[in-house]
């Protein structure tokens, strides 16, 4: 039983990270129906900016929590700028082109960014200063680290902020309108280019936060770290119903749980397979996902 609860806690932590990445996929797909392959790279870039800034600020003698907070905000901003640049260069000119062209352009950007990170940051793992969030609580065999509380807490805060942004503000309303009907939204005076750029920026900022969380959790970052979590987060977005924000959260939690429980009870070596199996199963039996509305023929 203790083992089960422990796994549950670990699953929620991992699920929170996947949910944050999945949000970026789901929001972008909801608006321009593009699988943004480069999204995993925004996540990796966020992780790297985190470690760069934390080490720099810590060397300046700042309090560790201040380091973490400032780095988090700056990394999120950095990735938002990066995503906007990628969107302008690689996706915007292809809005009217075939979907295959846009997808391949995204794939090219993903490879480009991944290698850009490798060239500037090196091939080897970069260690994270994990002592900032070291320690934790223990009840018998169950332990909850401060790190896990930090990850889940920060995810909750970001989700609330995102909810307010999407459902209470003007730009959020514009985003929802654009994702429902781009032409109609443009007719009522919404600048769809700005909405799309904002969506990319928000998604990438969330991915950057996830990158820092993963860096702290596993203790290091690597230039190719974006690929596998990216695919799993995409699986989460599809599972929850692509285009749906609540769905991305639910999907992320489920994928995280499944991965942890499969690793704990079935086989650690094949833990990555389960996310892919879920992805394939969902697309086969219920392509609209858990929370998805009816999607038209071209989407499925």
């Amino acid at each position, binding site marked *: 039983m203790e083992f089960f609860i422990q796994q549950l806690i670990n699953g929620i932590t991992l699920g929170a990270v996947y949910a944050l990445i999945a949000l970026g996929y789901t929001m972008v797909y909801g608006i321009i*129906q*593009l*699988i943004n392959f480069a999204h995993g790279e925004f996540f990796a870039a966020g992780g*790297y*900016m985190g470690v*760069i*800034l934390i*080490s*720099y600020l*810590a*060397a300046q003698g700042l309090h560790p929590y201040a380091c973490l907070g400032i780095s988090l905000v700056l990394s999120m901003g*950095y990735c938002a*700028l*990066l995503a906007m*640049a990628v969107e302008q*260069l690689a996706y915007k*000119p*292809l809005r009217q*082109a*075939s*979907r*295959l*062209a*846009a*997808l*391949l*352009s995204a*794939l*090219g*950007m*993903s*490879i*480009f*960014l*991944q*290698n*850009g*990170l490798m*060239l*500037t940051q090196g091939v080897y793992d970069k260690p994270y200063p994990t002592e900032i969030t070291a320690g934790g609580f223990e009840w018998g065999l169950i332990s909850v680290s401060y790190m896990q509380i930090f990850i889940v807490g920060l995810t909750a805060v970001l989700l609330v902020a995102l909810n307010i942004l999407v459902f209470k503000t003007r730009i959020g309303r514009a985003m929802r309108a654009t994702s429902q009907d781009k032409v109609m939204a443009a007719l009522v005076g919404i600048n769809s280019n700005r909405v799309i750029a904002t969506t990319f920026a928000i998604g990438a900022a969330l991915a950057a936060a996830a990158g820092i969380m993963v860096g702290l959790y596993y203790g290091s970052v690597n230039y190719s770290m974006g*690929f596998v979590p990216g*695919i799993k987060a*995409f*699986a989460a977005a*599809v599972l929850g119903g692509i285009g749906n924000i609540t769905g991305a959260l639910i999907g992320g939690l489920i994928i995280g749980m499944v991965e942890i429980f499969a690793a704990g009870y079935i086989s650690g*070596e*094949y833990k*990555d*397979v389960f996310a*892919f*199996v879920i*992805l*394939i199963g969902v*697309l*086969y039996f219920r*392509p609209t996902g858990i929370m998805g509305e009816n999607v038209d*023929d*071209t*989407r*499925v």
Partner: protein
Amino acid sequence: MTTQESKKLWMACGVGLIWFLILLWPLLGIQPEGLEFGKTFKVFGYIAVAAVFIMFFYQIKEAGHLDAVGDPIVSAKGRFQELYEKTPRWILLSIVLGFAIVFPLVTGRYAHDVSISVLIYICLGLGLNIVVGLAGLLDLGYIAFYGVGAYTYALMSLHFGMSFWLCLPIAGVTAAVAGSIVGYPTLRMRGDYLAIVTLGFGEIVRLIFNNWMGLTNGPNGILSIPRPDIFGFELNKLWMLYYVILVIAVITIIAVYRLNFSRIGRAWEAIREDETAAELMGVNTFLLKLLAYAMGATFAGFAGAFFAARMRFVGPESFTFLESAMVLAMVVLGGMGSIPGVILGVLALVALPELFREFELYRMLVFGGTMTLMMLIRPAGIWPASRVGRRSEEAD
């Protein structure tokens, strides 16, 4: 180009460069020891000079000052095209084939090595071309079938002592079966969902190679795979293997060419252009899509068996997603659905980088950038296929 447009273009270029500097500096300039600017500005300087140079060149070209250079090139190209169309096809083909046959006799080991990889990728590219170029199904896990072929030969030859020539068709068959297994559940999907599911399948296959210790020896791979032989004579020189893969590649080219102009090939193209319309015209779309997967996988299986025999080693690291992306990039760069296009794409991405060996580190960076750039400026590829339309579902 008016002054207004020119001004706008330079503004965009300037904003882009500043943006790039903002993105580049934190990655290079922030060190624990302090902030550093020299390295960033050095890299930025190169890029800025290159960008300004390209802009300048573009403006001169737009203003028509390069017509004196450009017009003769265009007319020469036109004349070449005319000559190409007038010459009987068999003369051209025999020149190319003759060159391919003589090539290893006049070159050294290094050239053999590169040309063998070129031919392997030609087989892979043409196989993927069936799936992506002809049937219009985006497959991001294609390299899995190459892996299936390679492991089939490795295991068959080591455990049962079977010869390469017997294993070659078996590898093709196992890869085709794997293709059908992947294809069967995925073919209900379309477009980018299909892409992501095939990616998932490709990763699953790689994870199985990596983790099934009993069968594949896991990440260590399988060592000392026997070389192919002919009537007991072991092909132990690289140029002998070159001829083996040349034969496989030529067979692949002929097979794909014949398929392209057969009833099946036309049905595939009909599916690519408009699946619903094709089905209404009586094309059995499900079976034909499955056949496209199986046929594409077969050629990958042949190439994989040869790869295992040539390297004498197989390991899961050779079958990563990046390899799938590479093969896909060759097909897309060359021109989807066009055989000479795919061959050109392979030459561009395998042989050309060999000329710039000292920039090896930047290879993938340039490769990713080129892929995006190609989609922006010439999405149909270097040598576009003659029969390509626009998918009706994308028209609106």
